[in-house]
Every structure is written in structure tokens, then in C-alpha cells.
């Protein structure tokens, strides 16, 4: 003797309900562990950067720079650097080339605007050269070849000379784009 069609139907409904609830509950359990950490993992991408006021940092005395404008490399020691939980004081945070032009100084970031390799100053050809992908830059930091891998000239930053001391606002910029955008 078989069940009546109505009973059959309610049995089918019950089974459907069980299957749906089972899938729902199992999916919730399966996704929960990963979901519980998603906000933390994505945290760095949600933090605003590049808008902070860049402090002035003392680099050297004007007298140490050659008057003919030959670039000289200097370490930039920042007074305060925060790396996640650690606060460092007076720590080298990068390097610049300083070139003097009378009482004015131009500062070029050591990092290539292409992909961030360290740029060399070539004494023989009196220009800048990136040894990674062969980008070349003139003494004024501009791109010198048509098919340069670097999309823009070397990154300059604000400088000032006060009482014979050279100050800069040390900054890093987003690599491999044509515009100069602070990181």
C-alpha cells in the first residue's frame, strides 16, 4: 500500500526543507572562519595614505655640496618613523642625490620611478643610470631616451636652505606611472 499523494507531497516538502537548512547551516559554518578574518586581512588597503604632512628633515650643510652642481648621495635620517607598532627615532629611511645650483639645492630620490631600483650617478657620462632596466636620466632628472622603461623623470622633493643647512621633505612616490603621486 502506497502513501496518499498528499502525504507524499508533505514528505517531499519536509525533505526539501531539511536539505535547504542543511546546506544553509553548513555553508555558514564553512565560510565563518575565513569571514572572521577578512576585515583584518584587508585592513592595509583601507587605510588612507599620502595625505600626511611631510616633515622637514635636515640632510647636510650647503658647503659640503660641490659648487659645479655634481650630484652627491646622502642618507636621509628621519627623526621619527612608525612601522606598525614600533616607533623608531633617528633612523635612515632612504637616500637622495643633492645637486647644488648657487644657493639652491635640488633633491632627487635614489629610487627609480620605474620599479624602485637604486639609481647610480655616472661620473664619466655625467648622468643618472638605473642598473636594473637601463633607464637613463639627465642631470636635471629628466628621461633622456625615447624608449626609456621609466614612465617619468626622477622624483624631486621640496628643499630649502636655512643658515647654510639643507633641509628636504623626504617622500616616496608611486612607481611606474607617468604622474608623480605620493605613496
Amino acid at each position, binding site marked *: 500500500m502506497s502513501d496518499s499523494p498528499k502525504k507524499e507531497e508533505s514528505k517531499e516538502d519536509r525533505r526539501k526543507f531539511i536539505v535547504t537548512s542543511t546546506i544553509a*547551516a553548513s555553508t555558514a559554518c564553512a565560510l565563518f*572562519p575565513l569571514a572572521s578574518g577578512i*576585515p*583584518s586581512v584587508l585592513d592595509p588597503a583601507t587605510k588612507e595614505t599620502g595625505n600626511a604632512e611631510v616633515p622637514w628633515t635636515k640632510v647636510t650643510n650647503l658647503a659640503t655640496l660641490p659648487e659645479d652642481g655634481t650630484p652627491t648621495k646622502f642618507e636621509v635620517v628621519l627623526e621619527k618613523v612608525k612601522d*606598525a607598532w614600533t616607533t623608531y627615532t633617528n633612523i635612515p629611511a632612504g637616500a637622495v642625490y643633492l645637486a647644488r645650483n648657487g644657493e639652491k639645492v635640488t633633491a632627487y630620490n635614489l629610487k627609480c620611478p620605474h620599479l624602485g631600483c637604486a639609481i647610480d650617478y655616472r661620473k664619466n657620462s655625467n648622468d643618472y643610470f638605473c642598473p636594473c632596466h637601463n633607464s637613463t636620466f639627465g642631470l636635471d632628472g629628466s628621461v633622456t631616451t625615447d624608449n626609456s622603461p621609466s614612465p617619468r623623470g626622477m622624483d624631486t622633493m621640496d628643499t630649502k636652505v636655512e643658515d647654510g643647512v639643507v633641509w628636504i621633505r623626504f617622500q616616496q612616490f608611486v612607481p611606474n606611472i607617468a604622474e608623480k603621486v605620493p605613496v
Partner: protein
Amino acid sequence: MIKGLMDWIDDRSGIRGLVKEALYEKVPGGARWRYVWGSCLTFVFFTQVVTGTLLWMFYAPSAQTAWESVYFLQYHVAGGWFLRGVHHYMAQAMIVLLVLHLMQVVIDGAYKAPRELNFWFGVLMMGVTLALSLTGYLLPWDQKGYWATAVATNLMAEVPLIGPALQKIVVGGSEYGHHTLTRFFALHAGVLPASLVALVVAHIYLFRKHGIHVKEPRPKRDSYFWPDQVLKDAIACLAVLLAVVALTIYFRGAPLGPPADPSNEFPARPEWYFLFLFQLLKYVPAFWGAVIIPAFLGLWMFLTPFIGKSKGGHQFNVGFWWVLIAGSAALTGMAISEDQANLKHGAAIEEANWQAERVIKIADSEGIPPAGAVTLLRKDPQNQGRRLFAAHCASCHRYNGHDGRGFPVDEPQSAADLAGFASVEWITELLDYDHYVSEKYFGGTKFKDGTMARKVLAKYTEEEKKLLPEIAKLLADGAELPYEEKLDEDTREELLSLYYNDDLKFEDGRACIECHDIDSEDEGSAPDLTGYGSREWLIAFIENPEDKRFYGKKNDRMPCYGRDGKLKDEEIAILVDWIRSQPADF
């Protein structure tokens, strides 16, 4: 199209058959709630692997970065507290579920032949899980984890022959440090979970091989794992999940104590599920706790399936496990109630909570130096001041009735309570005879029977007594306490005139100025009160109370901390800054 893709995959992997085999396992007697524990444990372990891997992205195992990276995750990363909380409370849930699973297996007799091997695997997995808990407890490198794990690893040295070497291997040397953390982390995130995965696979394989052990009588017709039993399993997992989320939100994530500091004592206590062992070690030698009892339990678990085969053996096994659980629960209860009855323990916990709040506040505002967060606390007058007070002053003095940190003191009080020292309220009370000779002020010193008490304070008329709070205002003004306002010039002049007894409001022999100088070059017979309680005055006083400016030869037992080199200058300064920093709890 999806079907085509599925066919393609199935053709090459046979996945449909696998899924079918997994889902359509027979459940004799129908789906039952008593079968959910294994699935729950698998779910919890899965959660721990996933959340643990995510936590890994934030954790830096070294003595100067472990606490710091956990602090950063907890307070400065979006949702960090939640991720950490889930991992922390899931670990607790895992222990509870393990006990439930084990008891269900024991009661149902599912450990008996042919399932002995799987029972032993289960017991082994329990050991690995406990090792995971133990290693994870240390990783935040806070006071609690540091001191408790020190006890656990010291126990390890009790193992015969290899113990001391084993301890060194686990700790990564003879002292706790970088290598303790790197090793514990490698164990916690690598070795132990990998072993557990292997054991889970073997456990589930053997479980499937022998099928569910059916508890008779069978309530219903046989059914399949899918969907009835899966639904029950999923609901149970969901319940565990909700409980863990509720705990995480209620406690705002896992606790983080002050950073580990070997020079800052903390009462070592393990996680709650190890408290029975902790309590046991109060009664038995360490060798018993570390070796004999665990070895006996291990052997007993090994024998359980064989005992179960004999007549009445199963009932014996069930009874044995109930007794074991009841005994552990009783020991745990004793451990908790002993701690609750112990005032010093409560004070130590409060002190640690205070330090944790304090160091987080400083780290939030100043950042953490490369030497680590523990240096923030060591340089903090609020923290160091109370610790110096407890170590050097509290055997005679008190601070709000305690030792400065909130601990009760065993020795009787024999000098003044210095909370709110030199404040208006403090001096007002001091000038009242009953207070002066009470334990809170000079009751424990020879000054109780001195001139000031007997010939001055005790003799004041009601009229004179009304003037004393004014005198207190004047003296407190000289202290320049950071939490009290300065008097204006006119009021100060007026009060000075009262002090000098210009209008003869005090009777002869009872005006302060007759013994105590203030703002003058003269030398009185009692301590000079110029700038009484000020930073300079208090530093000079603690350096040498026997100086003629203070007690001179009348000094009663107060050590000359500076003169005799008992405290360094900077320590005295920290102590003074702390005493003067806040009002008393009057």
C-alpha cells in the same frame, strides 16, 4: 555548461563517487544528536587552522615583537580583536567538545573491539590538542603566558634521564627568549596542527571503516548521513559558532595582559582546563604531576578497550571516567575558590590588569620603542613608583591601606599612610589629635607620645580646632600638588599671618610657628615646613630624614634612602612623582 564542466572533472577525478560515498554512509537507527561531537570537533579544528593562518599574517615571534604585534592586531587592525577572540574561544570550545566526545565514546562503548585503534588515535589527538593549547598560551608573550609556561616547561625537566635536555630543546636554551617563541610558534602553527591533520585523517578513515557504533535500542529506521545527520551536525556546529561569537563579543576579544617581564612577579596560572593539574601539584611532588600521573593515565587509556571486554569491565570503565572527570572538576573548583579567597592573588590580578591598561595607553600615545613595550612600563613613574613604594616603603607605610599596588601587607602598619600626602585633606586629618595618634598617621611611631601630640594637638580648644583646616590649606599650598589649586596671594598672606599667630588666635605654646619654621631662615626644633610636601622637599626628605632641616636626631626608624645608597636618585624622583601624582581615596 556547468554540467559539462562537472562531467569533465568527474571523468578525470571520480569526485561524484567520493562525495556520494561520503554523504551516503549508512546511519543505523537514524540520525541522532549523540553523534554530533566528532563533526563539531572537525569544524572547530578547521576554524582554528583558518583563523590561525590569518593570525599568522600579524604575528611576529620574538621577545621584543610578540606582545607588540598582538597588541597592534588587537587595538589597531580592523576586526583584529574579533579574529583573535574567535581563535581564543574556539580553543576553549575544542577542549569542552573533546571531553563530550570522549565521554560519548566511553558511555556508548564505542572504544571496544574492533575500534581500539581508533580510540587510541582519539586519545593521541587529545594529547596533541592539549599541546596546542599549551603552546598557544605563551605566544602573546604576556605576563600570564610567560609565567604559566615557565612552570609547564620546568615540569618537563622532571622526565627521567632526558628531562633537562628536553626542557632546553623545547625552550630553545636555558632561559626564555627569542628561541622559546620561535620554537613554540613552529610547534603551535606547524608541527602540532600537521600531526593533528594526519591523525584526523586516520581517525575518520577508521571511523568509516567500522561504521557508527550504534547505541541500542535503535530509535528509528536506518537512514543515511545525508541529509538528516548532516543537518544535526551542522546545527550543533552552528551552536558552537554562536557561543564562540557571543563570548568574543561579550569579552571584546581575547585578553592581553601586560608584556612579559621576568622582573615583575605574576601569579602563574594555566588556562582553566589545566587548573586541576595545577591544583594537584599543591599536593603531590612535581615528579608525580609531570611523569607518574600522566604515564598512568596514558597506560590506563591504552588498557581501556581491553578492560571493556571483561565481565563488568565496561561499567568499570564508565565509572572510572566519571570519577576522573568529577575529580578534575573538584580540583578545578578548589583551585578557583582558593584563588578567590586569597586577597594577594586578587590584588596581583588587579595589578596586572592595571599594568595592561597602562601600557596600552602609553603605547597608543607614544608608540613602542624597538626595545619593546616592557620598557614603557619600566620607565613609567605611575608603574615604577608604586612598585618602588611596595618594595621599599610598604613594610612600614601604607598607600590607601595597601602596599601601593593594591596588595595587602603582612607586617603591621608602623608609619603614616601616604596616599594624598600633603594634600589639604591629608594635613587636616593629621592635625586632628585622634587621627594623629591613629595607625593611619603617627600611631605606629614614637611621635604618638611626642610633644606635638600630647602638648599641642591634644590641648587645642574647640575655637583653635576650627582654625586647623586653614593651617592645612596653607601647608598644602606649599606642596604644589598637581591635583590641587594654588592659593591666591591675598589668601596666602592671610593664612601665613594666622600661622605666625600674629593675632594670637592660638594660645601660647600651641602655635605651629613655635617649633616649625615656614618661609624663614630660623631653625626650629621640629621639621621645617617651607615647601612641605613639594617635590624638592619630599626628595630631600627621603634622601635624608635625619638632616637637621627635618627630624634631625629625633628621626624614628625612617631610613636615609639617598644618603645610605638604598635608592638611586632617579628612583627617589620616580617615587616622589608617583606619591604626589594623585589624591587619596578618602
